[in-house]
């Protein structure tokens, strides 16, 4: 603590408005099972520091693996130098010392040791790939993967912020490739939670395998979808990836800073259909994007982004507040010490509505039902595209034949007003989000939703 206070005081004495130190230790385990064999066990551990210095609305950031006194001092000096500061500047006020540490880690010290051992993880994965073999037909490749990420962080800043935490994320995935003559289909499902050391042990490998095999069996013989504009019903859980990518990112203050969000001046205005209420929070117990504190030491909140179609708030971090005026929301997040924190999503979802999923489907004469979404991306002008992993035609209000090769294409500000119905079956799904401050754990979610019209790419 003395060493940290000395560094912070030194940065302030050199003229910095604020100095923040992020210290991290990590412990990772990855296990891969293919067919009925463990083919890769990859442990990793590490440590590092990220030092960020603010002056006015500018900042400099340096990361290092060298946690010696000399290493940290050099990193601080380098960050100060980026802003033209040095110890000869001596223009700023004194450092008032760190506050009493908020210790979110204290009840989590045994989490790592309580996680499943490598032996347990391998057995569970082999159970998964074995159940795939049991439930599947024409399976050419079966894979199960397990990932455990443990992270201990300590944050100290010259505004007195002083906090530490331990985070634990575990995820499991099953993937298959099915082939029958010229027909091929590949599909996967991932399951993930945070802060539950025991979680792998609770995983229902049989149910997960059955789910994957049912879907890939259906998609193996699916025809390509016909391209065009049509209504679409998006299933719950991972269907929320579209809101996350297409709209959620545009509600981060990093996008306001860049001038790349069409919603920058729209707080208080309608940006979506009145059926849409959207929330981002870091509080849901066990959810992949939940936090005890963000990576700037702030406790997370429940942030209503859109309420009945009206834009209410942006997600903001320290720099975002400084540069855009949007109040911090406990959303300053980063992959590791090598990234400066930025405003990022946590658990982001569209709230449940009044309808049943069946009502949404029966309201469509001819359209697309997206049962499972693959990945996607959003471009710098807000255009998004998402692969539909498992899709079905809707004809006369009924699900009919499966279709493959569909891509949903659109622009957030045009599509959000077209989400006209939300069902009552909200569910969350774990995912990873890559952006300016690296790849982080998030959840996406929604109930079944209906989009009145969207461009479907196909053949």
């Amino acid at each position, binding site marked *: 603590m003395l060493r940290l206070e000395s560094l912070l005081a030194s940065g302030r004495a050199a003229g910095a408005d604020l100095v923040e130190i992020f210290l991290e230790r990590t412990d990772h385990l990855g296990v*891969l099972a293919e067919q009925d*064999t*463990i*083919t*890769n*066990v*990859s*442990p*990793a*551990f*590490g*440590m590092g520091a990220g030092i960020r210095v603010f002056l006015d609305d*500018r*900042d*400099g*950031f*340096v*990361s*290092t*693996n*060298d946690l010696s006194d000399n290493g940290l001092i*050099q*990193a601080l000096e380098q*960050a*100060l*130098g*980026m802003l*033209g500061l*040095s110890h000869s500047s001596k223009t700023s006020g004194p450092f008032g010392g760190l506050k009493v540490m908020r210790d979110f880690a204290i009840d989590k010290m045994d989490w790592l040791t309580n996680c499943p051992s*490598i032996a347990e993880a*391998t057995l569970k994965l082999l159970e998964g790939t074995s159940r795939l073999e049991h439930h599947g037909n024409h399976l*050419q*490749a079966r894979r199960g993967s397990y990932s455990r990420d443990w992270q201990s962080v300590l944050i100290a800043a010259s505004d007195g912020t002083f906090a530490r935490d331990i985070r634990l994320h575990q995820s499991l995935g099953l993937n298959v*490739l099915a082939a029958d003559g010229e027909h*091929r*289909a*590949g599909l996967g499902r991932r399951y993930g939670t945070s802060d539950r050391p025991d979680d792998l042990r609770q995983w229902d490998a049989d149910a997960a395998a059955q789910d994957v095999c049912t879907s890939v069996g259906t998609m193996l013989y699916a025809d390509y979808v016909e*391209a*065009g504009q049509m209504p679409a019903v998006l299933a719950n859980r991972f269907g929320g990836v579209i809101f996350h990518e297409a709209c959620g990112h545009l509600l981060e203050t990093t996008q306001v800073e*860049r001038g*790349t969000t069409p919603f920058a001046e729209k707080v208080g205005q309608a940006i979506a259909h009145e059926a849409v209420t959207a929330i981002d929070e870091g509080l849901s117990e066990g959810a992949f994007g939940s936090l005890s504190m963000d990576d700037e030491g702030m406790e997370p909140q429940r942030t209503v982004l859109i309420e009945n179609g009206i834009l209410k708030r942006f997600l903001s971090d320290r720099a975002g507040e400084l540069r855009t005026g949007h109040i911090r929301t406990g959303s300053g997040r980063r992959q590791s010490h*090598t990234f*400066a924190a930025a405003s990022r999503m946590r658990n982001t979802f569209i709230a449940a509505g009044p309808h049943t999923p069946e009502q949404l489907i029966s309201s469509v004469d001819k359209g697309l039902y997206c049962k499972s979404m693959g990945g*996607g*991306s959003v*471009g*710098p*002008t*807000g255009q998004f*595209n998402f*692969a539909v992993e498992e899709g079905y035609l809707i004809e006369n209000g009924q699900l009919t034949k499966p279709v*493959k*090769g569909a*891509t949903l*294409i659109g*622009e957030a500000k045009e599509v959000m007003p077209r989400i006209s119905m939300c069902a009552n079956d909200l569910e969350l799904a774990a995912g990873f989000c890559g952006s300016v401050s690296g790849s982080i754990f998030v959840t996406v979610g929604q109930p079944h939703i209906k989009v009145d019209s969207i*461009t479907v*790419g*196909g*053949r």
Partner: protein
Amino acid sequence: MTQPTIQTLNAEDLSSRLQQLAQGAGIQQWDLGASCSTDTSVQVDRGEAKQMKGAQRSAITLRVWNGDGLVGITSTSDLSDTGLARALSGAREASDFGNAEETPAFSPLATAPLAPLDQPLHQPQPILSLLDTLKQAERQLLDRHIAISTVPYNGLAQRSSERLYLNSEGACRHQSLTTASLYLYARAEEAGRKPRSSGAMRMAYGAAELDIAGCIEEAAERTIAHLDYAPIETGYYTCVFSPEAFLDLIGAFSSLFNARAVLDGVSLSRRDSLGESVAVPFLSIRDNGLHPGNVGASAFDGEGTPTAPLDLVAAGMLKNFLHSEATARAFGVAPTGHAGMGAKVSVGADWFEIGVTPNSDGGQQDLDRLNHSGPVVVIDSLSALHAGVKASQGSFSLPFDGWLVEGGVSRSIEAATVAGDIRTVMKAIVGFEGVAKITPDGLCPYVWVEGLSITGEA
């Protein structure tokens, strides 16, 4: 200001410490890949510094073979004695779960001579100098057209790095490298119209060597060329892929050439696919990490095997697969220098050279996309390859930026996707246009492909 201390790796010291620790732990066979780097980078926003970053990183991946010959690994950023000892112990524990059906060994080429690479080392520039350079570049790009309002994605970065490969039989590979990169991605908007964006990037061995003017020029040209846009009708079109776009597409389907993917059953190729016709008879695809245009080329792979050129497709026939030591052993050939490092070793391509097979007819001649009576769709850049490519199935559906050329008139396409199957694409190449261009991913001319499905919003 304080300049960052350049991180270095001492191969002799690392080897000696590891040997000692391994002996103490009863480990006879091990190898190690190590890297360290010192980076500085800047981003700007309308004339002001947006973010300045520095980083010192070091990391090792350590593999050990246990008494049963099984392999385990551990990676860490802690290069202290304590860190190395813990890594050895972790790798030893992981080896208990090693795959007895496929155990990697040392590459037989881990001590073979390396091809010389002409990679001049440059001293890093002060970060404030990088900042000035990027501010000027941004200003010049903004000044190129009134509609270019911001350059929301930009960056100027430089890196000094070292790589090592060591093994317990005395192999010792070492490479030092400096690189610099610049990217400028502009956003332009005209009244009442949608914003449009495009950009360019450059790489060099040092910041002073970067072709900044060329990057500004290309970013401006590309962005301005998308200002006048219109939707395109859904249908089947002859498409002209830019060098970057075609290299992206081939790269996304490189499991076609990947022996690891073949053995795992997730490639479209099979063990006996070599010699089969996979493309038009004038197509050549070569992996050549040693090409002088490949800035930042590696002299050796993760197992210490020298990087070397390899014909993948010649005269439309599949000629070779990319290999690690283990896959090469399984196929009865030599490793090709495309391995990563792990208990299960990954395999990946380096840098493609795509073009006409010598002495073939070369396909249709005198192709000229800008003066074609059309209609043809020029695909300038592809997006979302991670989501829109099903490598193990061959299909793709990808958004792109590009133009519709009709009667010699070119107009930007508002928003569209291109869909197809890579096996069909490689057999539907009409010909090549122009001189092959060097890009960060390879060397390629414009590639004409007929009959691809385009979904538009018209």
